[in-house]
């Protein structure tokens, strides 16, 4: 590349980099609309609630209540509330009673405590002018995660002023969430939704999660709620890391160790119960110590659970549940959605790739929640509808974080439209006996409750770490799958549990844990979502239908599905009494739920489709316009159609002011061999390039056989040219070069006369060698042969004898002369006078772009009887010559004397000079051309 081009490239690069830098700087400075906040304490019953109101730029606007999770405070939802305010809602975040700076005791969302608090907050909102109202009824939505999701549902059930809600990763029945039993006795009909659970009574206590939560209520809030965003389609690792550094998220994490100033401390004021109400504390103590729930506890948990009000919820509800959640699984949201639908509410279900083990909703899902409120509170935006969306995490990770895609089905199966499609997968395996060791230890390890909120993706890690203890596990496996199977929901399997003869059945029945493994071809077992389904069977033998955990998992071809039943699990309260049972399948078909969906995408962007059409259309239009402009009528001068070349007033000025050719005019007739003579830099080559249409003249015109020459003018097909060096493809032979050249012209092969041309080149066998092995002279001759292909009417040769040796030069002159003799025209340029004198019939002398002389060589060169004598006494010589009869036109030029002898022999004149005593150094014909030329090139005439 040339220097200037390099400089341009460097400049362009620098400009791009500077622009990028400026844009980064500008982007980092932008902050979105400003949000005003207002902190207030609101009295509700016996409690003081710590609230923050977020006001958007434009009011009045609908309000959205933002509830926090268990162990959190209003600070932990600051970012969510702010985001909603930026979307144009009045957002109200508050700290639930018993947490943070709010006073009161934790009643687990009891109707007369936390639910009443929400009504109290809505009263406050109704007083605000910033909140949009229908008469006196404020437009209110409510959302929140986990504990906050439950209060959303409960408040919507109790307070009809709430117009829309979006509960996130929450429970339907706290009793079933903490003491689940997934065994349906034969005869019990399971709902036909994808993740329905039997929700049987007398479950197994979810010991570790309950402990984590109880601790959170005591003030150690570290592990209860996810603080990082879940993966979303298109998200990468960075977004997760950025979210983890979010101050609000950090506040929800471990920073709440000490007692908040001004509030009641985490130090328990009433013994080991912390800030819980005595009833809640008693129920937990019972569960934690016995591992079983009394009817009173079951009733208490049910009364504070959404299940108690879902038959009253008719407001549009967006149920968001996580697929990575060993605390509140997909079965909880399944029940909520079913119950609200039955009550006549409009329900949209979303499963996302997060949960208590996987992370809170990411920006995309949060935007969908805001869209829900936008439409249902103020009719803005498109109707989100009741489509069912679920996220699928790839089994294969591209770079670190798993990639996620979202699938969309027309509705939640079983609620609207058809029932869930279930695909039977045949499992094989014998009847197996499994043992619960005394004390339930050692136990299987599946999940790590609470860790998901600390380490992003820990659950993904954990799913590979599942450990089953030999002797405690029974397994059934499928054949390798022939194609990918996307499990979406809870699979069911029917099995028989029988007592082992001689081993007594414990009075509380037998506790088992069922799980579904994805077994890779190499035997690697993965427990999707680390989820297990506990079951308790009291009457043995028993035929049960077991609901396996609700998961979304693509199981690849060649993988097997394995159902395992264990007797222990570290996360649950396992009976201390030893037990042994045999387990067998009563139906070998595992019923796997499949929800056919389409990948959620934006439809192909219209602007891009239209844009492609517009661009293609523009290209076509430009091409047509250019073609029309090229079709301008050919410029012909009919008077000149027989004149090979007429150049008129030709000029070429290069950028920078250099005039390579200036006002050049001459004319070439048929049969002439015209020499274009001039020193280097006279403008000869530039003129020839203009003649070939390679260079655009700045002024004047060139006509070849009457047709004006321009780039690509058809008349150029009558010219054969060789200008400034040969141009061959070096990797091909000379012959191949000539044949490809002719092929490129597209003219008939029989017009080419290859044989004659190749003979003229005279390369012999070398014509079949690659051109890159040729000498300069060989290339030159091949190039001249190429110019002669097709016997053009005019041959233009630039310095044709350069690099040829004297015999070759002689032959070349002969070729040119005889070529012209066939009625054609040859134009030769040269800087050598002798060359032109010997080869040409006519000559044009150029110097510094201008015409100096033109005419017949014979006219200009040695003409008639003119002679030149170089003498020592020019004046005397002139008088001597003047004395001779018939001698005229005597000129003295320095030491030279010119005279027209006109018939007088030169020897006689010489004799006369010598006789007169003049010393003659040289005597010969006068060479006018040489005079002119030497003068031009500035050579000494001495």
């Amino acid at each position, binding site marked *: 590349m040339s220097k200037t081009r390099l400089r341009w490239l460097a400049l362009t690069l620098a400009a791009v980099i500077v622009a990028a830098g400026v844009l980064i700087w500008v982007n980092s400075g932008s902050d979105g609309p400003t949000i005003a906040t207002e902190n207030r304490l609101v009295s509700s019953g016996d409690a003081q609630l710590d609230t923050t109101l977020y006001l958007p730029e434009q009011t009045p606007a609908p309000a959205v209540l933002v509830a926090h999770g268990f162990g959190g405070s209003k600070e932990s939802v600051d970012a969510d509330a702010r985001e909603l305010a930026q979307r144009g809602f009045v957002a109200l975040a508050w700290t639930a009673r018993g947490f943070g700076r709010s006073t009161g005791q934790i009643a687990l969302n009891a109707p007369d405590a936390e639910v009443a608090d929400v009504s109290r907050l809505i009263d406050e909102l109704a007083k605000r002018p910033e909140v949009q109202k229908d008469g006196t009824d404020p437009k209110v939505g409510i959302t929140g995660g986990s504990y906050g999701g439950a209060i959303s549902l409960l408040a919507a059930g109790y307070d009809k002023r709430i117009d829309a809600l979006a509960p996130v990763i929450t429970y339907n029945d706290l009793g079933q969430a903490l003491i689940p039993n997934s065994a349906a006795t034969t005869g019990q009909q399971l709902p036909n939704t994808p993740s329905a659970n039997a929700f049987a009574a007398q479950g197994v206590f979810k010991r570790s999660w309950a402990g984590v939560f109880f601790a959170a209520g005591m003030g150690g809030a570290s592990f209860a709620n996810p603080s990082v965003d879940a993966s979303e*389609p298109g998200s990468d690792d960075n977004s997760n890391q950025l979210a983890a550094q979010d101050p609000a998220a950090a506040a929800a994490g471990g920073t709440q160790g000490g007692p908040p100033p001004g509030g009641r401390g985490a130090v328990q004021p009433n013994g080991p119960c912390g800030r819980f109400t005595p009833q809640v504390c008693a129920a937990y103590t019972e569960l934690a110590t016995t591992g079983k729930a009394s009817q009173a506890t079951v009733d208490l948990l049910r009364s504070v659970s959404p299940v108690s009000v879902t038959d009253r919820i008719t407001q549009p509800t967006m149920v968001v549940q996580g697929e990575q959640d060993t605390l509140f699984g997909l079965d909880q949201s399944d029940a909520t959605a079913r119950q609200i639908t039955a009550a006549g509410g409009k329900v949209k279900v979303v499963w996302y790739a997060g949960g208590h083990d996987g992370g809170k909703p990411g920006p995309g899902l949060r935007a969908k929640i805001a869209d829900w409120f936008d439409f249902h509170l103020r009719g803005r935006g498109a109707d989100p509808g009741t489509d069912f969306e679920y996220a699928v995490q790839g089994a294969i990770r591209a770079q670190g974080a798993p990639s996620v895609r979202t699938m969309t089905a027309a509705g939640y199966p079983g609620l609207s439209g058809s029932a869930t499609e279930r695909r039977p997968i045949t499992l094989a395996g014998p009847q197996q006996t499994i043992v619960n060791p005394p004390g339930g230890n050692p136990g299987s390890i599946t999940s790590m409750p609470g860790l998901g909120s600390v380490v992003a993706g820990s659950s993904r890690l954990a799913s590979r770490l599942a450990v089953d203890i030999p002797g405690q596990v029974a397994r059934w496996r499928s054949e390798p799958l022939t194609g990918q199977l996307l499990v979406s929901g809870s699979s069911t399997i029917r099995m028989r549990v029988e007592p082992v003869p001689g081993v007594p059945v414990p009075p509380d029945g037998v506790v088992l844990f069922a799980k579904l493994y994805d077994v890779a071809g190499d035997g690697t077992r993965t427990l999707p979502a680390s989820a297990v389904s506990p079951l308790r069977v009291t009457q043995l033998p028993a035929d049960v239908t077991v609901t396996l955990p609700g998961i979304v998992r693509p199981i690849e071809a060649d993988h097997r599905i394995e159902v395992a039943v264990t007797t222990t699990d570290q996360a649950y309260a396992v009976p201390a009494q030893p037990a042994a049972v045999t387990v067998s399948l009563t139906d070998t078909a595992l019923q796997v739920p499949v929800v056919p969906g389409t990948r959620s995408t934006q439809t192909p962007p219209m602007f891009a489709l239209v844009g492609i059409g517009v661009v293609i259309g523009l290209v076509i239009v430009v091409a047509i316009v250019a073609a029309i402009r090229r079709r301008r009528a050919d410029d012909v001068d009919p008077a000149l159609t027989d004149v090979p070349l007429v150049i008129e007033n030709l000029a070429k000025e290069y950028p920078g002011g250099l005039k390579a050719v200036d006002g050049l005019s001459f004319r070439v007739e048929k049969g002439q061999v015209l020499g274009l003579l001039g020193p280097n830099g006279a403008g000869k080559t530039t003129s020839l*390039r203009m003649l*070939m249409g390679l260079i655009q003249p700045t002024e004047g015109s060139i006509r070849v056989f009457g047709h004006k020459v321009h780039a690509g003018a058809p008349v150029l097909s009558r010219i054969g040219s060789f200008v400034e060096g040969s141009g061959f493809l070096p990797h091909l032979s000379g012959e191949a070069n000539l044949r490809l050249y002719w092929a*490129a012209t597209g003219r008939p092969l029989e017009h080419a006369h290859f044989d004659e041309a190749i003979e*003229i080149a005279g390369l012999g*066998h070398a014509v079949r060698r690659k051109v890159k092995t040729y000498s300069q002279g060989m290339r030159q001759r091949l190039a001249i042969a190429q110019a002669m292909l097709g016997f053009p009417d005019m041959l233009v040769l630039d310095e044709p004898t350069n690099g040829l040796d004297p015999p070759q030069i002689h032959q070349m002159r002969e070729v040119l002369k005889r070529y012209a003799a066939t009625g054609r025209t040859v134009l030769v340029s040269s800087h050598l006078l002798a060359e032109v004198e010997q080869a040409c019939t006519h000559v044009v002398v150029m110097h510094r772009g201008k015409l100096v002389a033109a005419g017949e060589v014979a006219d200009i060169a040695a003409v008639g009887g003119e002679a030149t004598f170089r003498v020592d006494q020019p004046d005397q010589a002139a008088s001597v010559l003047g004395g001779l009869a018939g001698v005229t036109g005597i000129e003295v030029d320095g030491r030279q004397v010119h005279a027209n002898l006109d018939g007088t022999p030169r020897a006689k004149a010489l004799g006369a000079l010598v006789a007169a005593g003049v010393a003659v150094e040289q005597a010969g014909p006068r060479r006018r051309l040489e005079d002119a030329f030497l003068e031009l090139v500035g050579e000494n005439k001495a």
Partner: protein
Amino acid sequence: MSTNNVHTDPTAIGAMEEAASHEHLKVQPDGSVVGYKASRTLRIRVELARQLRRRRTQLMLGLLVLLPVVLVIAFQIGQSNPNRRQGTFVDLAVASAPNFVVFALFVSGTFLLPMIVAIFFGDTIASEASWSSLKYLLAMPIPRHRLIAQKAITSGILSLFALLLLPSVSLLIGVIWYGAGEAVSPTGDAVSFGDGVTAIYAATIYIAINLLWVAALALFLSVSTDAPLGAVGGTVLVAIVSQILDQITALEDLRNYLPTHYAFAWSDLISTDIDWSEMTRGAFSAVCFAAFFGFLAVRKFTRKDITS
């Protein structure tokens, strides 16, 4: 007579004179000699013959055939546990033949494929200029717009052939080594072998469309310089800078305007349910850049003074 000291047989001159004096071709109304027609100059077949006989073309196509073989050998040496279905892209590559092809396309997508297109388009006119043959082509005369069009079409054919060669050879080698299994996408989606093969060729077509901008930029540089390396190198440099800027996440949506931003949108095709939105955007972006640089290239070439 040595081959270097060649000379013309005097009889040859006579033969030439004899032939030339009997051959006087008629002239057409536009001034051209009978047999000449602008629309017959530099036909694609001729230009293909000119290009295919170049060692450069042969080497490049050979490299593309060799690449999958090299990849397989590398996997054979480096991988003790074949047929894994989880982990990184490398593990994914040996899962099945379609995955192997996808891997081959991925590893060559950042640099190799743009470079191949840049070579075919960037070299096409600049190399004629460097050989001094360009002026003879133009003096035939091949109209300039036709020369650049024929050159571009030929380069396009060669590029497309090269782009198809890589997945085809990879597929063949993949089937031999890893079997005709399901294609698995990074999002865990599985596609049957037949659909996978269809997706691969659709992906190749998309790559071809997406690389249009490379083609047009290379063509523009090719008519701007007489140094073929300058044109090819300049194009590759722009592609690399664009890829680097694309890595700067702080640029956010501005990255959508980078020509390489949608280079891998074709991976959406490895799916049971194809998302066309990214590919549509990618095609639009490529078509815009291609039209812009293509326009500049034609405009520059039809107006420039040929001095090489």
